[in-house]
């Protein structure tokens, strides 16, 4: 299942899929009620993102931290 929104092509031969009846699929994230399930599940299971905080005014710097792949792992603007 593919969820990372990359722009590069995936290469697969028909034979690779036929043996074992394999498939490759994506999944479109979801709607607001799915978001609510995600939040509720995270709240009671303790799943949390690792974040780096920046003030809103430093959005450019914060974006740069994300786009260069330096962030560990999600960058968050706080108001």
């Amino acid at each position, binding site marked *: 299942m593919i969820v990372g929104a990359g722009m590069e092509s995936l290469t697969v031969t028909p034979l690779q899929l036929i043996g074992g009846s394999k498939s490759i699929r994506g999944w479109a994230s979801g*709607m607001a009620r*799915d978001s609510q399930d995600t939040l509720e599940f995270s709240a009671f*299971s303790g*799943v949390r*993102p690792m974040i780096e905080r920046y003030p809103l005014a430093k959005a450019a710097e914060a974006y740069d931290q994300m786009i260069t792949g330096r962030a560990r*792992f999600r960058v968050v*603007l706080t*108001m």
Partner: protein
Amino acid sequence: MKAVQISKAGGNFEVVERPVPQPGRGEVRIKVEACGICHSDALVKEGHWPGIEYPRVPGHEIAGRIDAVGPDVMLWKQGQRVGVGWHGGHCFICDPCRRGDFINCQNEKITAIHFDGGYQEYMVAPAEAVALMPDDLPSDEAAPLLCAGITVYNALRNSGARAGDLVAVQGIGGLGHLGIQYARQMGFHTVAIGRGGDKQPLAQKLGARTLTLTQARVLRRSNCRRWEARM
């Protein structure tokens, strides 16, 4: 209020003063407390999504509080803690919507593509794009769950994998570090596949066994059923 906008494709982030927006029919205004920065914000910054009208405020990982409610909104009231993610609304009248398949709405609105997102102090969102937020989740930690979180959580729970199945998470990054945790908490035998190096101990701490890409390739060739991933 303060907002951060992009005023043309490929433009830079501009910190600007804007009037506080007013919610229209079927919309709510949210006082933004935190907004995550997602890799797909690059679509807005670089103009890679067709038809974006500029200036545009990026940000589709929003956590905040309902501040004002427009006419005809029945679900929400002022003061509720909420979040907004990528799916920013649907039309209710196209064929997919009439079949309840709102994610495939032919007139889907995407947050920060079709209306201004969360890099600002207040934003307006369609009521159907809003999720209620549990009280014990801090806004800064909740924000990335509205895109990165739901992306992996919802994929995992719709994958067909069952408790105890082997789930391989490839890449320990913005999505993978959440995918490992969700997969483990959902009861999957969770294996993280990465390049090796400093992220391996972290992946183990988050609940995964770890393999390097090379090890994963060797196992695949060995056709060992114990390592046959369900997902």
